[in-house]
């Protein structure tokens, strides 16, 4: 059976088993094992691609090119991480009698399901399938957001669902309009919605319809990616979702949505030239970075902080793509890669701290966590340095690449604003993280005495993720690098 | 470039000679001013040799030191004295060349005097008496305010003469012929004020006061006795003479010897004595016609001299 199909089946099956029930150990084993296998399959697929093959299934509805391959590997990796961390996460809650059977079912069922949806997005070559897959991620994440079933989580869930569905409606309209733009040039049936066909037919697409379609598609998928001003669901969702799910959203959903944006952008680029959708992306990206800035400066909650940081990062990537040019595109993809590697560390350490203090609000966490949770705090600082693009970590290089491209391009003013925002962002982050990590240890008389930090599977996952992220800054496996370059070829091929 | 050994020897012996001469004459100047002042107040005043008697007495006295003081207290007067004496080797007195001209010029001179002051002020803090600190603080304050005016005044002449080395300066003035330029007057006035301030004369400081609270220099050396005090007094006297000589060199070098011929030397000596004496009279008149200023009025005085110096510079070179 086809490699891609396997890659999709495994997480689906895992989800099914996880959702059904059974002893905890068994479920844990299934989830971790399944997602490990999935990751392996993703890597295998990528290898196959690098081997020169173009893995495809269902008449090119699923097709793996450079971009997809990169996405697959990243999604697989993040899926695995969130599975292992998730096991630890749930165990911690079990230990504190916080877990209901419903939660177990949802947790072990939804996380693999989510991974499945992400993978489906990443390998979809058919705009219709792509849309359906994205919708699936949305539906799955609603449960994860309302996982803890608190007032706030209901609120967050509702907002997410309404905004998300609206976005998807727009995305659908966009898809329809793109399809309409290709009247009679796309062929018949299922294949008519294939991205590859669009690329071939690009010159003969009807420009206005196409423009309209691109606009709606960008808004639609932009909502999922969390580009401003459609970003508003993100802080709420991230705060409410359990950290493992948070990672899936912050990396998986973000990458997936970015993937969709890229596909649309590429069609429009092929048909209308890079300027049209490029400028739109640049504008939205810049807006995102600018919007994220003040909220990071005056933030009151650790996870919301991370949410705004991911709004910032999707903005950075959008800017990178919008700037145009191979260097910038490469920078954006490199940024995506490094972000996918670094963000989990942030989520895991923050999640741990939040669990220890049974809240992610700064006032509850207090100051001087170094003294009571050295490992988590250390990782948090490390992660903060990484995601603020400090040297010598990877994001420094990717941001430098983008900035350089920006100053070399015609968009100097935009890039300068962008740079200024980055500076302020860094300061805000330093302030917030420093505020909780440093300082005197909170007084022992405090009644909300935090849990002690213990060395469990979640912690191990966090540490491993951190090591991977650090090493990757200096050394990326040649094959992964090849993938990034291949992806760059797709996004800004000389062809 | 560095003077060969024989020249070095010659230079140093010359230096010693000149230093000794100034050392010998300094007490005389001090007493002379005292006496003239007394006369202006219809008093008899001390005998002209009083300065020498005092020094002799002090040098013979038993040295008394505070038990809270450290070696810095001992070093203070010696460095102060040394600096004052060494400084004399940088200015020409009778011959149009400073003995240690090779060593440096005006900047070094000013620096050396600052060094002496630094040493004495530091030492003054060593005894733990409040007056020492008070004196040190005030002395450093006034010196700090005087410094820019002093240097600017000196720079004016130096720039005019195209040399920052006192000897070279004198020579170039001589060879261009002693001419008068209005800026000289301003510069001179400015520098004269500074000399008054630096030598602790009325209206800045009152060398004759016995009320500690109004003291500046005197307060600083209040804890010294015997030989130490002698060194301080003597050094101050030399410093004063040095300043007057500097004024002479800068503004009325006429008569200074350009060769080592005995006659020339003799003439130079006479000329120098007269000029210094005139300046001494000027100092006396200032002292007796002014009242001592409050400490916080001193800045105004000094800023006047700074203004004068700057004006001199301006009208000379613009």
């Amino acid at each position, binding site marked *: 059976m086809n490699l891609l199909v396997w890659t999709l089946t495994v997480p689906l099956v895992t989800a099914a088993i996880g959702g059904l029930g059974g002893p905890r150990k068994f479920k844990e084993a299934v989830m971790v094992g399944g997602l490990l296998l999935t990751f392996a399959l993703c890597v295998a697929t990528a290898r196959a691609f690098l081997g020169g093959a173009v893995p495809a299934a269902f008449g090119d509805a699923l097709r793996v090119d450079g971009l997809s391959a990169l996405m697959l590997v990243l999604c697989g990796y993040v899926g695995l991480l969130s599975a292992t961390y998730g096991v630890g996460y749930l165990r911690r809650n079990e230990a504190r009698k916080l877990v209901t059977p419903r939660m177990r079912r949802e947790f072990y069922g939804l996380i693999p399901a989510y991974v499945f949806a992400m993978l489906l997005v990443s390998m979809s070559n058919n705009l219709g399938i792509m849309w359906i897959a994205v919708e699936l991620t949305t539906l799955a994440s609603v449960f994860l957001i309302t996982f803890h079933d608190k007032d706030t989580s209901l609120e967050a869930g509702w907002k997410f669902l309404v905004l998300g569905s609206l976005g998807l409606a727009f995305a659908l309209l966009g898809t329809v309009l793109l399809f309409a733009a290709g009247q009679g040039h796309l062929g018949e049936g299922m294949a008519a919605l294939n991205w590859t066909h669009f690329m071939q037919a690009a010159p003969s697409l009807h420009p206005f319809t196409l423009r309209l379609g691109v606009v709606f598609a960008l808004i639609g998928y932009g909502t999922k990616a969390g580009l401003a001003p459609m970003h508003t669901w993100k802080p709420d969702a991230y705060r409410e979702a359990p950290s493992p799910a948070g990672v899936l959203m912050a990396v998986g959903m973000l990458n997936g949505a970015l993937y969709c944006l890229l596909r649309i952008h590429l069609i429009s680029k092929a048909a209308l030239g890079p300027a049209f959708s490029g400028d739109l992306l640049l504008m939205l990206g810049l807006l995102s970075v600018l919007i994220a800035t003040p909220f990071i400066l005056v933030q009151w909650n650790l996870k919301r902080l991370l949410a705004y940081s991911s709004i910032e990062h999707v903005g950075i990537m959008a800017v990178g793509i919008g700037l145009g040019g191979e260097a910038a595109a490469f920078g954006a993809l490199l940024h995506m890669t490094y972000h996918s590697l670094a963000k989990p560390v942030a989520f895991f350490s923050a999640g741990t701290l939040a669990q220890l203090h049974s809240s992610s609000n700064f006032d509850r966490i207090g100051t001087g966590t170094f003294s009571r949770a050295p490992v988590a705090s250390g990782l948090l600082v490390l992660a903060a340095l990484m995601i603020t693009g400090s040297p010598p970590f990877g994001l420094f290089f990717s941001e430098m690449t983008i900035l350089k491209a920006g100053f070399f391009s015609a968009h100097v003013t935009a890039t300068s604003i962008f740079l200024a925002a980055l500076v302020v962002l860094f300061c805000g982050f330093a302030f917030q993280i420093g505020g909780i990590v440093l300082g005197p240890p909170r007084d022992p008389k405090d009644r909300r005495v935090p849990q002690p930090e213990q060395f469990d599977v979640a912690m191990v996952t966090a540490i491993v993720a951190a090591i991977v992220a650090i090493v990757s800054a200096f050394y990326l496996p040649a094959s992964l690098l090849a993938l990034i370059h291949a992806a760059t070829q797709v996004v800004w091929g000389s062809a | 470039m560095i003077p060969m050994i024989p020249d070095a020897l010659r230079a140093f012996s010359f230096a010693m000679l000149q230093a000794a001469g100034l050392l010998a004459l300094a007490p005389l100047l001090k007493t002379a001013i005292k006496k003239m002042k007394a006369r202006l107040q219809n008093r008899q005043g001390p005998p002209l040799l009083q300065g020498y008697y005092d020094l002799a007495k002090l040098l013979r006295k038993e040295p008394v030191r505070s038990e809270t003081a450290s070696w810095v207290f001992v070093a203070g007067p010696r460095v102060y004295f040394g600096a004052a004496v060494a400084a004399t080797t940088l200015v020409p007195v009778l011959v149009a060349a400073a003995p240690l001209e090779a060593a440096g010029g005006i900047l*070094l001179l000013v620096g050396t005097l600052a060094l002496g002051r*630094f040493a004495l002020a530091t030492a003054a803090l060593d005894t733990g008496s409040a007056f020492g600190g008070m004196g040190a603080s005030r002395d*450093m304050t006034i010196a700090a*305010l005087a410094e820019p005016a002093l240097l600017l005044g000196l720079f004016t002449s130096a720039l005019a003469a195209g040399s920052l080395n006192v000897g070279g300066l004198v020579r170039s003035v001589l060879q261009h012929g002693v001419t008068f330029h209005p800026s000289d007057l301003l510069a001179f006035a400015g520098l004269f004020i500074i000399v008054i301030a630096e030598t602790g004369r009325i209206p800045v400081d009152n060398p004759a006061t016995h009320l500690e609270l109004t003291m500046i220099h005197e307060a600083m050396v209040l804890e010294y006795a015997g030989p130490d005090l002698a060194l301080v007094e003597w050094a101050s006297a030399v410093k004063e003479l040095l300043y007057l000589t500097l004024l002479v060199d800068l503004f009325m070098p006429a008569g200074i010897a350009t060769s080592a011929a005995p006659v020339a030397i003799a003439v130079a000596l006479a000329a120098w004595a007269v000029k210094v004496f005139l300046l001494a009279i000027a100092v006396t008149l200032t002292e007796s016609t002014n009242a001592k200023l409050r400490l916080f009025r001193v800045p105004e005085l000094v800023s006047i001299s700074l203004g004068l110096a700057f004006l001199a510079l301006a009208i000379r070179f613009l």
Partner: protein
Amino acid sequence: MLQLVGVGVQAAVVIRLVTIAATLVLARWVRTCRYVALGGSILASAVTVSAAIQVLVAGRSLDGVLFRHATSGIVLSYSVTPLSAWFLMVFGLIAVPVAVYSVGYFAHSIAPSRMAAVGSGFNVMLGSVELVFVAGDVITFLLAWELMTLATAALVATEHEERASRRAGYLYLVMSHVGTGCLVAGFLTLAAASGSLSLSALLAGHLVSGVTRDGVFVLFFVGFGVKAGVIPFHVWLPEAHPAAPSSISALMSAVLITAGIYGLFRVCAFGLGIPAVSWGLTFMGLGTLSAILGVLYALTQSDLKRLLAYSTIENAGIIVLGLGAAMLALAYGRTELATLAAAASLAHVLNHAVFKGLLFLGAGSVVMGTGTRQLEQYGGLLRRMPWTGLFFLVGAMAIAGLPLLNGFVSEWLTFQALLLGFSSTPGFIRLNYPLSAAMLALTSALAAACFVKVFGISFLALPRSTAAADAHEAPPVMLAPQALLAALCIGLGLFPGVMLRALSGVLASLPGLQPADRLGWGSAGMMSPVGSFDHVVPAIFGVALMGAVVAAGVLAARTGLAIRRVPTWGCGGELSARTEYTATAFSKPLMMIFRAVYRPTRQVEALAEVSPYFPHEVRYRSEIEPTFERYVYGPLLRGVLRVANGMKVLQAGSLHTYLAYVLALVVLLLLWLGGTA
């Protein structure tokens, strides 16, 4: 030989990395960890210095590749120019002694649990500074620059339980980061113009012109000015220095500031083509301002390290003043003058590093010995800590610019530059030279007053607190470095020619300058390049001075009588520390005279029981107004936060608002698309 240099640079980096790794691994074994960290640091610095000296000797710069970031295709390259070699040498002269000192210092004042962190931070900081000096391309430079900032910030916040330390660290971090932002913008603008990333290509000048050029200049000036501590970008400095451990403070003053100066030299002065007149004037003006305000603020401080920090601002000002003179000279095409001024500036970089390093190390010993930074708590330390006292005195005299010590040398050169500038600059602009000269004179005199106060109040007379009364002398391992630096102060003071000879090649390598061999006069003397305007040979004078001092000693010792020790007269009362003159009192007259600058506020309350004329206790507190903090940075920060808070309404929690954003965006885009194909 030059190949060796390359090896040296790489070797140094490798040693650093290994050291850092080892330090972290050995975290558990505190002693070993400390020795490894500092030993490695010493080794690395030594290697760097040797490399630097080779370049100085060869007089040619050397380029090479350090590390190739395969992922982003970014290449980190190094290029040791004579200029960077000079700064590297300065760096090494301080870094090695400080490391030795820290062997003793850390053992005493760093919590064992933090040894690994501090040790590795120490190495990261030094390594990144080295990298800043040798960076051959923009990315390397920015990377090193940012790393340097982060490491230093972390070290400043070592005592992060103290609010002050956190605040200082954060203030420093933010200001430097804004600076870095400016640098990124500036460098990338140049890079875009040149199409290359190598500094040598970027800084060839002529890349940009007109407004762009001025804009870039401003960017760089801000970027480097922050690090250099030039007023008005100085506010972080007096906060960060006291907060950091003393050996780190020494590094910050002597090395970190120097990195900023390096930038000003490399880019602002000699990297953007022939400087504009306005640039030179800006530098001279702000330099003078920094010098005078720095020393004035230093005067009134009662916290020893804070005082030293302000005096660092003063010296940075003097350096920048010299540089400004050089730039102005270049603008008028006066090579000789430019060379002289640049020489003065570079010389002062070295001298300041030496004596300020010395002073901070001394301060470290004192703080360690007494456990406080407050001058008012010291007194009589010379008895308990004779050696520290002696070395500190040397440093104090050097920084006061007294002859025979190195401070005098660079001040002499600066004065020469200013005077020469006056006589060789056309028009009214020339008048700013004597003004600067006068201010410089005032500065050095005030510095003298300031350090009389520091030394006198802390080391002399009676102890003012029990802490001072039972202070203990620092161990030899901490004294030796001070001895070395003190010796350097004297050596450089007596043989300035040596330094100038070393500078000659450096100056020759700077565009628009000529070799400065005419400055040195033998190895003992200096002379002004034009005619026989002025020269100085401190050594000769030193002999005379020694002679005179000895003579004085003999003269005074002539009477054979034994010395009688008596208590100091306590005005009738019995003498105690409370009757001593305090640091505050010492600087009071100047505070009154310059009240326009200080805007002092004072409150005196006399607690009297019987009659107001006999208070049994008088409380006096006086503080000077932190002008820049209050009128520039405070409002700025508040403004930013206000805006940020205002933005919060965007995320007020109402789903309807969020939907409205989307509606608005859609409608806007639709209108923008219009219709009618």
